[in-house]
């Protein structure tokens, strides 16, 4: 009887072929997104607690302002319908804008160091984390979508509209998460990032079209709203979910451009966290 061939020593095993840049980016991004879903599956507490604030916006602010007709909406749309996409974008923003804290936490516990020692380019790591924030935001948006539908908001439920909405939220969240990671790379401390996050979240929200049309704003706030990616995210959601007129191509181009810029900036600063 011939002896079974000895297994090759593990240490000398052939390296798997290195994937190309695009495939590498895709692999890492999907890995980190999947990981986010796994974490959500293990602990759903955040899904419930984070649903409270958007629920209050819809139930208190939305219902009240619908009754008093204080805010003019395009096509005499009920204010609650107009507000719902804004609240979705807002809840995604609130999740993503503190994502840099997770990065600092990972730095403090050595996880980031270990991730940086894997064959993962920094841009792929940042992109993966940014889109993972998008995954978490989507889970939140689904909750808001269902709640708004229960309150009587009439959405277009076409699959393409829903898919487009997912894409808009993913891009918007990825931009704000990479903005947060950029700030993390600059300030390198959880406390400072928390302070800055709180300082910029509400201005980003109010200086956008999430709550009311930009035409009602003072000129200087309109100028900020025009460069605020949140406005483009809300615009895209209103077109896709409510059928309001707009320029979807421009909204997605703005979101994509902002996301690429955000990921680039955060990647360049990631090394400061690894020191």
């Amino acid at each position, binding site marked *: 009887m011939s002896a079974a061939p000895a297994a090759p*020593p*593990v*240490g*000398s*095993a052939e*390296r*798997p*072929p*290195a*994937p190309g840049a695009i495939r590498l980016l895709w*692999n*890492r991004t999907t*890995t980190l997104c999947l*990981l986010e879903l*796994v*974490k959500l599956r*293990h*602990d759903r507490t955040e899904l419930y607690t984070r649903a409270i604030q958007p629920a209050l916006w819809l139930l208190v602010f939305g219902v009240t302002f619908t009754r008093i007709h204080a805010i003019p909406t395009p096509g005499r749309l009920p204010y609650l319908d107009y507000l719902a996409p804004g609240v979705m974008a807002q809840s995604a923003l609130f999740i993503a804008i503190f994502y840099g804290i997770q990065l600092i936490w990972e730095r403090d*516990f*050595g*996880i980031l*160091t*270990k*991730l*940086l*020692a*894997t*064959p*993962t*380019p920094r841009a792929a790591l940042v992109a993966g984390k940014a889109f993972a924030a998008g995954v978490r935001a989507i889970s939140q948006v689904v909750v808001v979508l269902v709640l708004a539908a229960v309150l009587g908001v009439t959405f277009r439920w076409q699959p393409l509209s829903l898919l487009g909405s997912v894409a808009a939220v993913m891009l918007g969240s990825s931009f704000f998460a990479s903005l947060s990671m950029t700030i993390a790379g600059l300030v390198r401390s959880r406390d400072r990032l928390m302070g800055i996050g709180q300082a910029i979240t509400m201005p980003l929200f109010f200086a956008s079209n999430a709550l009311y049309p930009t035409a009602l704003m003072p000129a200087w706030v309109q100028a900020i709203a025009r460069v605020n990616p949140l406005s483009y995210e809300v615009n895209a959601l209103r077109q896709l979910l409510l059928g309001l007129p707009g320029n979807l191509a421009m909204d997605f181009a703005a979101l994509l451009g902002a996301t690429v810029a955000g990921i680039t900036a955060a990647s360049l600063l990631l090394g400061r966290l*690894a020191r």
Partner: protein
Amino acid sequence: MTRQPAVAARGLVCQFGPVRAVDDLSFEVAEGEVFGLLGPNGAGKTTVIRVVTTLLKPAAGTVRVFGLDTRRSTMRVRRRIGYLPQQLSIDGQLTGYENVWLFARLFDVPRRERRGRVEDALAQVGLEKVARRLASTYSGGMVRRLELAQALVSRPRLLVLDEPTIGLDPLARDSLWERVLGLRAEEDMTVLLTTHYMEEAEQLCDRVGLLLNGRLRAIGRPRELEAALGPGATLEDVFRAYAAGGADEDKGGLRDVRSTRRTAGRLR
């Protein structure tokens, strides 16, 4: 044909502002060897490890891993290394299996092999029965073994361990080393480690390098270094003899001490 050294450092210099953390350091680690870098806090051990693992670019000099320059062939070097940092670095929100699975994906382990490789790595460190438990429920020793499984899943040729047993109780420490040495024997893996524990280095390392103020003060087999000091000398005596000549206590740095304490605290 002579084999390439697993690690070859030549004239390595690392500078942080006015502090020269590593100063003209040269050493080699042969393939299949267990090599220990010893030294007090602030000696520059972790800085050397960070250069070897491509996390830090040196101010001068080169480090080659299996002939690959860590500066120019970053990704290829990383694919050959399994790394255990000083700090505990597992994600407590994931199970043991998921923690290892993440590294299998990040090292591009092919999908058809992935499940088997993750299970093998967990079995190698004796965690297969608790693989589906959240890692936050693991003891300190189990966490370190899980980190080892993460490092092993890519089947590295070089295992880099930065103070791997810090804060572990003696039983957990023995268990970790038993597994590292077992793996080294089975897999013909090279191990580069740093440690504060001289007894551990004496028992485990084929060769050690004694680092002080970023400079290599002594290098050789533990027994040779002991014999050079005198009869009955231990590696700890060797360490004390060299350290008495010039360890700079300021260089340990608050950050270094804090990081060490944090790791030890989390393991208790």
